[in-house]
């Protein structure tokens, strides 16, 4: 984790557990070696705790190199407490857990089946009706309890020691009670002989045993856990896919030598070589060579981006055509990709406010259920007839413990948030947390920043109109040649426009920028004037015929410029910040969702209205100064609106922060992610609608899950306690209770997984 030390420099800290040290001298030796390493600020090795604590400059070295250093000194490093490794080991743990659970389930199922047959036959199968049948059940059930069910008992014990209780507690107490009672009833039947059965010759077999409850419950719950482990593994797919984008190795040049190293060993400042078709390992700046790079995994833009010396490149993007060298600037967890991974991971752990109630309930759930179970036992013991009171009290006690499912409550929110935010990341929508999700689905007003959000944010050449018999191609060539020398942003738009049309640009001479009016220059022996109406009037050039046309262009939000060649009016060109493709559809979709769409801009009313008309927005806030944008949002909120603000993240930061949900668009930079609640990596405005739709779908899933989890417990527990018995004679067998319990958590996870098919 990055920190700032006293000098304000960024430094990172790592704790390495070291093995193989035999005395304090070993510790000193490692400490000295580490302190000599470049980039290490301070290293201390503690012999007693067997740990090395190292503070280092992440731009000069990294954990991998430090571990190597310790190993080179002759000692070993056990484990690394860096979070990057967490995903891999968690996945391995999930896979191992699945295999173990499956094996335990198979053992439990195979052994439970005969026990179940014996119990259900109630003596009707004659060869199963022998004296030692209880002992046979004991032999079959014991391995199920001791081997398959072990995890429930150890888990319950560990929780108990911490004065907490979880699902394990319920299962352990439930099955443990059934098992221990049955063992006692088998070994000492006389303890439980009821008055009515006392005279029977088969007193021992008359005492009921509940081995089948213990073993079948364990089998069924293991089946549920196995299914759940598999489904839960799938909820983390999105992160896995993101991490999988990063190549495993990188080719770097060190000391003039080209060598292949693992990607996490690349340090900032390394020169990295990338060949055509390879993935770029880390973020950096191109130093030599040129290529086109497919950045679609980060930007969603499918057209490869041209890169040459000085261009920024990002890890996990794919180099298409040429080979190039670049200097690594951001490595390890600082790369754009890792930032995204971190953001998604943090979001997946967050919870929307709607889940607070569920959290409060699940926090007290288990002890409350245990209390209800005890009460159930007492009530049945007192209320039932003496012959059956103990067994009925016992069976219902076990049923209550087993049917209660804190898991479904606990899984309801996190699984939906995990799948929802993961799906978002796949679609280029980065959602910061649960509360952003919950607020986003309730928005009723969306404010769109104009420049860069609705429009491309970069002026473009839109119109070329000729007069007095001039050729369009020729006119544009002269204008672009002159504008090539200008530094004005509109000039760059004209030059780009000419190049796009395949026009060769000449060298211009005698270039002169006339402040507030335009430019003049000499191109290919001809004199060119380009500028506003004032420039033309002052130069005595007649433009009358075109001024109405220019007026219309201005109404469309464009900036017209007049051109004169050799003192004669030649026509006009217009430049405008054009609307992004998809903006119009996006506005329509947002309006269809019932949101009021407002456009906000610093531009004049005329330009703003023109753009708003084009995309179908009726409410426009124009001439809003950057510092007043947040105030405008506040004003809307004061009217009771829940406002989502869409902007490009940097200059709109105050407005994004003021809004209920700030949506940064078209960027993956840290600043934008920091300032916003939702970040759309792609520049397409349609992402806003998709983000809102996704938040609605996710919150809907959370609500469904919570509803079912609540209802399940609210109905299940009283039924298991036997509340229906006085009216209908219904009692819930503990085995049915365990099946219902397993099903409830599996169904919650499955419901969350449905979000994976969200298309937006």
């Amino acid at each position, binding site marked *: *984790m990055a*920190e700032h030390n006293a000098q304000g420099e960024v430094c990172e*800290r790592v*704790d390495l*557990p070291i093995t193989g040290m035999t005395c304090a001298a070993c510790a000193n030796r490692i400490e000295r070696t580490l302190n000599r390493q470049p980039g290490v600020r301070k290293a201390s090795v503690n012999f007693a705790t067997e740990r090395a604590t190292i503070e280092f400059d992440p731009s000069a070295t990294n954990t991998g190199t430090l571990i190597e250093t310790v190993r080179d000194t002759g000692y070993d490093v056990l*484990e*690394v*407490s860096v*979070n990057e*490794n*967490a*995903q891999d*080991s*968690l996945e391995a*743990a*999930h896979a*191992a*857990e699945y295999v173990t659970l499956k094996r335990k389930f198979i053992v439990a199922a195979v052994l439970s089946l005969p026990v179940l047959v014996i119990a259900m036959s109630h003596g009707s199968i004659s060869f199963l009706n022998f004296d030692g049948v209880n002992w046979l059940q004991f032999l079959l059930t014991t391995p199920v309890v001791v081997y398959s069910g072990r*995890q429930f008992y150890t*888990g319950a*014990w*560990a*929780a*108990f*020691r*911490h*004065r*907490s*209780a*979880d*699902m*394990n507690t319920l299962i352990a107490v439930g099955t443990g009670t059934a098992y221990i009672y049955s063992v006692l009833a088998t070994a000492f039947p006389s303890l439980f002989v009821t008055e009515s059965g006392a005279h029977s010759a088969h007193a021992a077999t008359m005492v009921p045993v509940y081995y089948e409850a213990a073993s079948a419950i364990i089998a069924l719950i293991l089946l549920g856990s196995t299914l759940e*482990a598999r489904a*839960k593994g799938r909820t983390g797919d999105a992160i896995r896919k993101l991490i999988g984008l990063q190549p495993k190795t990188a080719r770097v040049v060190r000391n003039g030598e080209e060598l292949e190293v693992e990607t996490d060993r690349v340090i900032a400042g390394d020169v990295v070589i990338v060949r055509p078709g390879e993935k770029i390992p880390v973020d950096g700046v191109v130093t030599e060579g040129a290529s086109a790079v497919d950045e679609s995994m980060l930007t969603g833009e499918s057209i490869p981006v041209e890169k040459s010396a000085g261009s920024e490149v990002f890890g996990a993007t794919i180099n298409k055509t040429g080979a190039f060298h670049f200097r690594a600037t951001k490595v390890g967890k600082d790369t754009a990709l890792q930032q995204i991974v971190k953001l998604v*991971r*943090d979001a*997946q*752990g*967050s*919870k929307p406010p709607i889940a607070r109630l*569920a*959290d409060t309930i*699940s*926090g*007290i759930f*288990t*002890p409350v259920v245990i*209390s209800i179970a*005890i*009460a159930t*036992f*007492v009530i049945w*013991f*007192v209320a039932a007839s*003496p012959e059956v009171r103990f067994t009925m009290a016992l069976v219902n006690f076990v049923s209550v413990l087993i049917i209660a499912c804190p*898991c479904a409550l*606990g*899984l309801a929110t*996190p699984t939906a948030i995990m799948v929802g935010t993961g799906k978002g990341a796949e679609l280029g929508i980065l959602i910061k*947390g649960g509360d952003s999700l919950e607020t986003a689905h309730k928005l009723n007003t969306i404010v769109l920043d104009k420049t860069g959000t609705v429009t491309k944010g970069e002026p473009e050449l839109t119109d070329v109109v000729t007069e007095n018999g001039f050729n369009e191609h020729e006119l544009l060539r002269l204008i672009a040649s002159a504008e090539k020398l200008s530094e004005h942003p509109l000039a760059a738009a004209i030059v780009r426009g000419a190049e796009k049309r395949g026009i060769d640009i000449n060298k211009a001479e005698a270039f002169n920028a006339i402040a507030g009016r335009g430019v003049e220059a000499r191109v290919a022996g001809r004199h060119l004037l380009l500028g506003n109406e004032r420039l033309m009037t002052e130069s005595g050039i007649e433009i009358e015929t075109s001024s109405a046309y220019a007026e219309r262009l201005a109404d469309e939000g464009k900036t017209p410029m007049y051109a004169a060649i050799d003192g004669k009016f030649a026509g006009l060109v217009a430049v405008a910040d054009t609307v992004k493709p998809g903006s119009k559809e996006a506005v329509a979709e947002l309006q269809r969702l019932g949101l009021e769409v407002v456009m906000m801009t610093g531009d004049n009313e005329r330009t703003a209205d023109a753009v708003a008309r084009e995309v179908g927005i009726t409410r426009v806030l124009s001439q809003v100064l950057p510092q007043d944008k947040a105030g405008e949002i506040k004003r809307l909120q004061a009217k009771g609106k829940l406002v989502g603000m869409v902007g490009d993240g940097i200059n709109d930061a105050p407005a994004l922060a003021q809004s209920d949900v700030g949506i940064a668009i078209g960027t993956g930079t840290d600043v934008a992610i920091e300032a916003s609640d939702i970040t759309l990596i792609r520049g397409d405005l349609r992402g806003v609608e998709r983000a809102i739709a996704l938040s609605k779908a996710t919150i809907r899933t959370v609500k469904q899950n919570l509803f079912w989890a609540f209802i399940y417990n609210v109905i299940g527990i009283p039924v298991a306690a036997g509340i229906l018995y006085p009216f209908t004679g219904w009692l819930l067998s503990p085995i049915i209770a365990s099946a219902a319990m397993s099903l409830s958590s599996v169904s919650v996870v499955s419901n969350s997984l449905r979000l994976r098919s969200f298309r937006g």
Partner: protein
Amino acid sequence: MDTNEIIVIAVGILAVVTVIWWFFGERETVAAEVRKDGVQEIDITVKGGYSPDVIAVKKGVPVRLNFFRDETSSCSEQVVIGDLGIARDLPAYKTTAIEFTPDRTGEFPFTCGMNMLHGKLKVT
């Protein structure tokens, strides 16, 4: 009402009271140790719960919580400090450090991803 019934009722009531006291009673608070470099640090073992589970720290001083997950049970594979917006995966048998600087006082619960295991940070 026979003797057995009276005994069962009495034991039942006692059991419920014990359960409630055991699970909801007051816990012991452990203060994080302030190290030489000014960081308040504490090791927390994660095994069916957090030990210690109530941790006192001071406002405005960097905190480092070293979570050592001493089990593979999937219940504890994530730790969440919801109020601080922190969620971390905890690999089994490894130490995961969580660092932050508390900027306000109050009680901040930390839980596992499913809100089954509970701990609390008391910032003063």
